[in-house]
């Protein structure tokens, strides 16, 4: 295990990301509301570049008392969709929304002396 410096803190403001190459792996480092998350850029489905996808909220639906449904965004900006086929993942957990047994590989991120380091 080693810490790899990948960016200055201010390089990745909230809502942004940086794609980095560490030890031959393509990794997306995301800032979701001040928390940093590093995910491997390989979709569980067909290996697509998931970390290059667009950000969305987590769309949910609730059954109302009259048994109709109401769709709403439960979160904002913490879901990434793989551009190849649309598989959606929650960034903080790396889990696939449609089936949480699929998870993107996650790496710890530490902040030291104003720099972000990915541990792997």
């Amino acid at each position: 295990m080693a810490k790899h410096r990948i960016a200055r803190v201010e390089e990745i403001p909230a809502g942004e990301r940086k794609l980095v190459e560490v030890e031959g792996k393509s990794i997306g480092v995301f800032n979701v509301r001040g928390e940093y998350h590093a995910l491997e850029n390989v979709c569980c489905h067909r290996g697509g570049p998931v970390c290059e996808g667009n950000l969305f909220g987590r769309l949910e639906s609730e059954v109302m008392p009259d048994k109709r449904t109401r769709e709403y965004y439960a979160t904002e900006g913490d879901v990434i969709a793989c551009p190849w086929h649309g598989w959606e993942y929650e960034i903080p957990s790396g889990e696939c929304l449609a089936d949480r047994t699929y998870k993107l590989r996650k790496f710890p991120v530490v902040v030291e002396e104003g720099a972000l380091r990915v541990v792997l």
Partner: protein
Amino acid sequence: MAVNGFTVIDTDAHYLESFQEVAKYMEEPYKSRLLKAAHRLIPTTTGDRFMEGRIRRDEVSYPQKPMTPEEIPAAQKRLGVDVSVILPNNLLELGKFPVKNMALAICRGFNDYMLDQIVDPKRGIYTMVFVPLLDPPESAKLIDRVGKHPGVAAVCFISANVEPPLGDTFYNPVYEAAQRNGLPIVYHSAGSDLHDFFVRGFQSFMETHSLGFVFWNYIHMTSVVMEGIPERFPGLKFGFQESGIFWVPQLMYRLDNAYMKRRSESPLLKKLPSEYMRDFRFGTQPLESPKNLDHLKYAFEMVDAENTLMFATDYPHWDFDPPSTITDLPFLSHKAKTRILSENAQNFFRF
């Protein structure tokens, strides 16, 4: 090019063409009609295939604007595809055109456009003859006119919304023309719009798209087999695209079951429906991906995959399959992968 040493033939790729470009190959008054009202004449789908930006195709202009011919080799390179059989995207709704002369003018224009601007056999870029199935005699003339072109690899029946089903004697002139020109038949299914689905009222694109492709394949396969098209046109080869593979064994065993009880309704058949179907070819896309790979393995066995499957990407559509869909399968032998990725297509199409 190749992927992991395998030559890859993509038996179903798409190209988004500009109506302005195609119109140059059409005659008046259809030319002006298409130029001025393409989007009202040609039904488009509802429901966003790209889910408001969740899916993107950064490497090609599709779906925002028409592609350019140079994008085809670029896409081939990105996918690792050596040979592509291309269907122009705007023709997928051909079966819905109600006006015979317009459908004919469009098919003539699209075929001439594809052959003049898009195909390039030296670079492995082929197309098919697209025929207006509501006018079989004119379809036959079209096959005779362009069928000898080296860029033509098959006759394509764009099969969604086509009635009567494609085993009907109504289509005899088209099958005869394909046989005469030594071209195989590709039945290319398509999805259905929310508005035009068999049953109205579905609420999402996913619901109708999942069913539409396989329904049209069920419909035409049943008709082609049970009406004895292979017996009536023994020189023809048949391939079905766009529904994955699990529909095939389901229909094989269902038709066999009925045939065993009701042979008197199809006395022309010389063998079981499933035996005819095993002589056909099936595009792999969108290949199902069960978590338990044994289920996929058994489906491959049931359809005699090594001899019947032909790899297809369907790129750049939202549900495309890359070649790794096949190369990664642990239960397939090297020989089986080679056959599915290129040899079966090589033997089926006229390249």
